[in-house]
């Protein structure tokens, strides 16, 4: 992704993170002086140590209570499509969609817009719990069907 010229119509702050130029941040840091940079080196090491606790969901810029975009790390169509469907089934939800902005980045974005009664985060959580519930039911049904099948096989043999 090439850095775009500064003469963009929209302020860069408003653009989604995936469209903000990478270089911009670096130059800004350089301006801040050397002591800041030193501190950063130290923080960098710390970050590597804490790598285990990578955050898997985050709220994207520009989100409000009832209209929010979430970014999921290391998730794809497996979760995205099922989540989109189940959130959309919630009558309190006005809109829900998911996208994988770039195939070589392991990131999945979900946009949720709700009516006044609830918040986007609540709708997301509810969606996750609904799939869990569905999984429970399917597990039970599958195990029951497998047991049934075994019994029938044993009876005919």
């Amino acid at each position, binding site marked *: 992704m090439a850095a775009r010229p500064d003469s963009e119509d929209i302020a860069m702050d408003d653009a989604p993170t995936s469209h903000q130029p990478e270089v*911009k941040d670096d130059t800004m840091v350089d301006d801040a002086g050397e002591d800041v940079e030193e501190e950063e080196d130290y923080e960098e090491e710390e970050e590597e140590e804490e790598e285990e606790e990578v955050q898997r969901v985050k*709220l994207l810029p520009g989100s409000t209570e009832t209209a929010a975009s*979430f970014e999921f790390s290391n998730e794809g169509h497996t979760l995205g499509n099922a989540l989109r469907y189940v959130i959309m089934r919630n009558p309190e939800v006005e809109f829900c969609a998911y996208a994988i902005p770039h195939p070589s980045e392991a990131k999945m974005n979900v946009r949720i817009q709700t009516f006044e009664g609830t918040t986007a*985060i609540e709708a997301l959580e509810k969606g*996750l719990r609904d799939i869990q519930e569905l999984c429970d039911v*399917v597990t039970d049904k*599958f195990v029951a069907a497998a047991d049934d099948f075994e019994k029938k096989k044993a009876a005919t043999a």
Partner: protein
Amino acid sequence: MDYDPMAMDDAESLGPVVKISQADSVRVKFELQNADISFANSLRRVMLAEIPTIAIDLVEIESNSSVLADEFIAHRLGLIPLNAEGVEHLLYSRDCDCEEYCENCSVKLTLHAKCTGYENMSVSARDLVPVGERINQSLGTPVINDKDGTGPLILKLRPEQEIKLECIAKKGIAKEHAKWAPSAAIGFEYDPHNKLRHLDLWYEKDPKSEWPPSEYAKWEEPPVEGEPFDFDAVPNHFYYNVETAGNLPPDGIVTEGIKVIQQKLAGLIHELTEGEGEGGYDGPRSPDYNSGPDTGYGYSTSYGGNGGNQSAWGGGGGTTPFGGQTSYGGGGWS
């Protein structure tokens, strides 16, 4: 927000139904009804790529006078299915406290064969011997299902050639490398009569006579001649055919698959609810959740928010327009 996700307006109101049509030691064929295609596909994808199993990941070759190159043999060893019973008690090597690998996160296997006779000799998976401590007696044992009881062929040796090596089998998922796939193949099918017209069947003269009916065609009503197209119809019956590579039982793949989805969801729910209470830097927060000297951009993401410039790891945080909170990072630590 009170609604029952299971009580849906159409066929889904009945709740999902599972029917098994065939089940043995290598495959299970089943039908999932009254679920959405998105869930059905999630289950398929997760069974293909995200169920943890065990496979050889490190090979130390002591001697190899065979005609095959070391790395060639190492690759072949990786692809040999190993019994994954009890793999849930095995740690991922990356999560283990040990330096490189230990009995908590790996299984060691050795292979030592020398052709002492006058005829070429076959070395197969049977000759891989698990050594050392194991979580249970079957975890990591090569899968042998053929009638000769040898397992997959690894290499052949001419007289006087020798192979001696040590393998470390680790836990992993097929998303990282296909050798960790539990399933040899997963059949997935819906709408055998193509009533929904999701398929555009290629044909020379007549698609009906040129395309043989699917084995599931008799499970569903054939289309009536002259029937108008139903624009509201959605797929509702999904036919799976899960064939194991031998490392997990076929029905185990299905239940494990659902378990993996649930773990995924549980992790996310945990993260979501954690962040709400304490306002720490994990968990997403609603935009106006942060009061106090915040970045002033009306949102905060994973790394920011702890008092503007002193964000968790962006030292130079406050200097960037995004407070060092963009996904690309404040200063090259991304």
